[in-house]
């Protein structure tokens, strides 16, 4: 059912002219994070939003174990696919830079103003990263210069060829998939998954 529609909704974007290669093998685990699958992302997220970063500010906070730096990232929400609709959303991430002091946590995403992303947000407790699976709950929206469409990349910049690639494996970076999910296709898949999971608000 769900699987069948995925394959049909892919966008062709420039098959390169330099031959084909068959690859690759990787485990479904991360040393720091066990990457969630697409269905897990949808199910575990309290909110799913398409949003653009409009501000970020790092500051010192005091915890029971001492001081830490957190970064508040404010998003202008373009579309809410799951959760309560809002115009703006501010999320707190462990880490950041204040003055010449920086706290870095491998695996926690780093947002820049004007970044446009689809975010799978957890809204419970006070997590180090409010995204499902740390960075795995972040999908970059980038403009494809060749075709003028918005396409989806994973948090680390890999073009997302299929929902099956979410939380599954990563092709080597020098391989460019022949097809990449467009933003519209990705949002439709999320909508479909939400309906199937019966969690559409």
């Amino acid at each position, binding site marked *: 059912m769900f699987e069948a529609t995925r394959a049909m909704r892919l966008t062709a974007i420039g*098959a*390169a002219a*330099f*031959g*084909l290669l*068959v*690859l*690759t*093998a*990787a*485990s*479904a*685990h*991360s*040393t*720091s994070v*066990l*990457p969630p699958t697409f269905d897990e992302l949808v199910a575990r997220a309290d909110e799913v939003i398409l949003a653009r970063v409009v501000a970020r500010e790092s500051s010192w906070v005091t*915890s029971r*174990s*001492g*001081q*830490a*730096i957190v970064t508040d990232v404010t998003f202008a929400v373009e579309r809410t696919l799951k959760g309560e609709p809002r115009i703006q959303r501010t999320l707190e991430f*462990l880490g950041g830079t204040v003055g*010449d*002091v*920086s*706290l*870095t*946590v*491998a*695996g926690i995403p780093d947002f*820049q*103003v*004007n970044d446009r992303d689809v975010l799978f947000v*957890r809204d*419970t407790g*006070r*997590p*180090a*990263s409010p995204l*499902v*699976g740390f960075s795995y709950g972040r999908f970059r929206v*980038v*403009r494809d*210069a060749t075709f*003028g469409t918005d396409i989806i990349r994973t948090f*680390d*910049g890999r073009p997302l060829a299929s929902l099956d690639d979410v939380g599954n*494996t*990563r*092709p*080597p*970076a*020098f*391989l*460019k*998939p*022949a097809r990449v999910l467009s933003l519209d296709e990705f949002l439709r898949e999320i909508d479909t998954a939400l309906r199937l999971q019966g969690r559409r608000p």
Partner: protein
Amino acid sequence: MTRRVLFATASLIAAGAVTASSFSVFASRWPNGNVTLQLQLGTSAALSNGARTWGEVAEAALADWNRTIQSLQLQVVRDSTSAKGDGNSINNVFFSSDIYGMDFEANVLAVTTTWRRGSARTEADVIFNAGRSWDAYDGTLRRSPTDFRRVALHEFGHVLGLDHPDENGQAVSAVMNSHVTDLDRLTADDIAGAQSLYGSGATTGSGLGGGSVSFPPRNESLDFRNQLEAVYRDGLRRSGPSTSVDNEGAVVWTQEYLRYRVNLCAHFQAVDRVMTQIDGGGIQGVCGTAPPGQVNFPPRNESLDFRNALEAKYRDGLRRLPISTSVDVEGEVVWTQEYLRYRVNGCGHATAVQSVLTQIAGRPAPPVCR
């Protein structure tokens, strides 16, 4: 564990496109000397690899790293009772059900928090998720319990200053890849990364090893571009092509693209970063540190692909009107890349310009300057 293997058919961007696949490092390192980790891992039941304690396993992992590096050694205090805290300049290694008061997600195995002041590391804490089942064993990875040793090996790599190479455009076999596999020992790439930070004194002087590549001031690159225009117009009698990208934009962004490429970004990563900069996103991080020695540039077809993307950006995104130039886009990007190749390989401005003009005149390419 369930090991899922995906065989994917994909198009190769270019033959030989990977010019320098290797490790990835953060923008900071420890000062030379010793760094002490407070091992606070508590007791354990008998471990499958024969070790008696988590601390013993952790020390073995640290020893693996220590053997590979020279100017830094990671030392330990066993069964330390030091205060556990962030931002206190004490390097804690322990199990916990939270990350200094912030929630561990169930699927997070371990976290390394690193503090730096400027480019100098000042603290690193490794926190293993106490909510998971752990053991220590070699070889094939099992889904549960998780092998403490290889996770520790990976996290201690973060302590040293290593990042995930596979998340930075590289396809290498490495414990430092973000995905844990059956690999349970350091690979050549892991070791090369650590040695780029703490290897021989000769390679650590810059603070980031021999990886930093200095590009020329933009005014010099623009001067080259203007000279190229004159050569094409007056010498080669070329005319006619139009472009939406002015000379300054072309040379500045091509230089930026190449800067990302020689610092280990893949083609699409470099293109993305430049486009983000054009959109006002500021200078983006590079993907790694170029290895010491002669600096390799990407295949010209990729640079041309970038130049075409830049043209589309200026024309369709920035709505720039076409202007005339004597230099076609292929000539522009090829010769700009040649000029920069000479510059980053030790040649001064005048020598680099002359070396390019020599080639345009049909004579063999002069050698670089180192």
